[in-house]
């Protein structure tokens, strides 16, 4: 399985994402730059975290309108798996590839800590190596992770099982509606989440709870 990582000015978790994908798949991912209009033939495209374009206007707003994101949208429409972490999630909602919006944390504070996540849908390409209802640990580091969707959209994504990760046991760090931490597209190939599973993949990280997400997506035996 081959992967690619999207690089944009202002992202700062790109190296972490590249390291995680390299360690887990045994192959370095291809990298694509903001001006690239074509993405190589890969199975998984990852959009890392950071502060693309300085978070100007709205987090992810400028990045979502770059040429490379048009190419990502074309790949997503063809069924290629896409994962957006943190700023990557914000970019995916701004690009309209996922429903809803990510707003300023209710506390108005930047949160950088570990949270617990409940796997609310283990029947996706990304979560198939977890058990339904399983609680995993994951770091978060963001200022704008407060997920919002109007009542109609919320009812639809809840009803269709598109809510994949929820902050568990009172660990909601940002006021996100229904404790939503990560959602998937209706076709099941585009995932966005605020937590950083790529930062918890080996003993040196203090745990490997995030590893199964990439193993599942890349079809690699645990």
């Amino acid at each position, binding site marked *: 399985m081959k992967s690619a990582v999207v690089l944009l000015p202002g992202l700062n978790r790109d190296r972490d994402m590249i390291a995680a994908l390299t360690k887990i798949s045994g192959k370095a991912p291809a990298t694509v730059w903001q001006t690239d209009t074509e993405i190589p033939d890969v199975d998984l495209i990852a959009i890392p975290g950071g502060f693309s374009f300085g978070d100007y*206007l*709205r987090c992810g*707003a400028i990045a979502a*309108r770059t040429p490379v994101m048009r190419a990502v949208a074309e790949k997503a429409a063809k069924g290629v798996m896409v994962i957006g972490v943190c700023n990557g999630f914000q970019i995916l*909602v*701004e690009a309209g590839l996922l*429903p*809803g*919006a990510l*707003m*300023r*944390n*209710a*506390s*108005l504070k930047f949160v950088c800590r570990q949270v617990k996540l409940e796997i609310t849908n283990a029947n996706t390409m990304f979560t198939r190596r977890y058990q339904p209802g399983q609680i995993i640990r994951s770091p978060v580091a963001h200022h704008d992770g*407060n997920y*919002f*969707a*109007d009542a109609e959209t919320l009812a639809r994504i809840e009803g269709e099982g598109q809510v994949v990760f929820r902050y568990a046991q009172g660990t909601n760090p940002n*006021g996100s509606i229904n404790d939503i931490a990560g959602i998937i597209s209706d076709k099941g190939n585009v995932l966005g989440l605020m937590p950083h599973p790529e930062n918890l993949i080996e003993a040196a990280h203090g745990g490997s709870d995030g590893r199964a997400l990439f193993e599942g997506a890349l079809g690699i035996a645990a």
Partner: protein
Amino acid sequence: MIKARITVTLKNGVLDPQGKAIEHALSGLGFDDVGAVRQGKVFDVELAGTDKAKAETDLKAMCDKLLANTVIENYSVTLT
């Protein structure tokens, strides 16, 4: 040249924690009559040409495509 002002505000029902914090700060300054405060954004845009109808159409398209996130925000366009 055409000049325009675009105002972007949060939709009703969307929680605005920044507006809330400002509201509290204003009451802390002794402005006891302050009710709800909502924070928004203003863009002043200059456009070449004199066709006001085209300008208005273009400005609305700019809002829909970039300046506002219509999931959570409303916008209004005024030619000045």
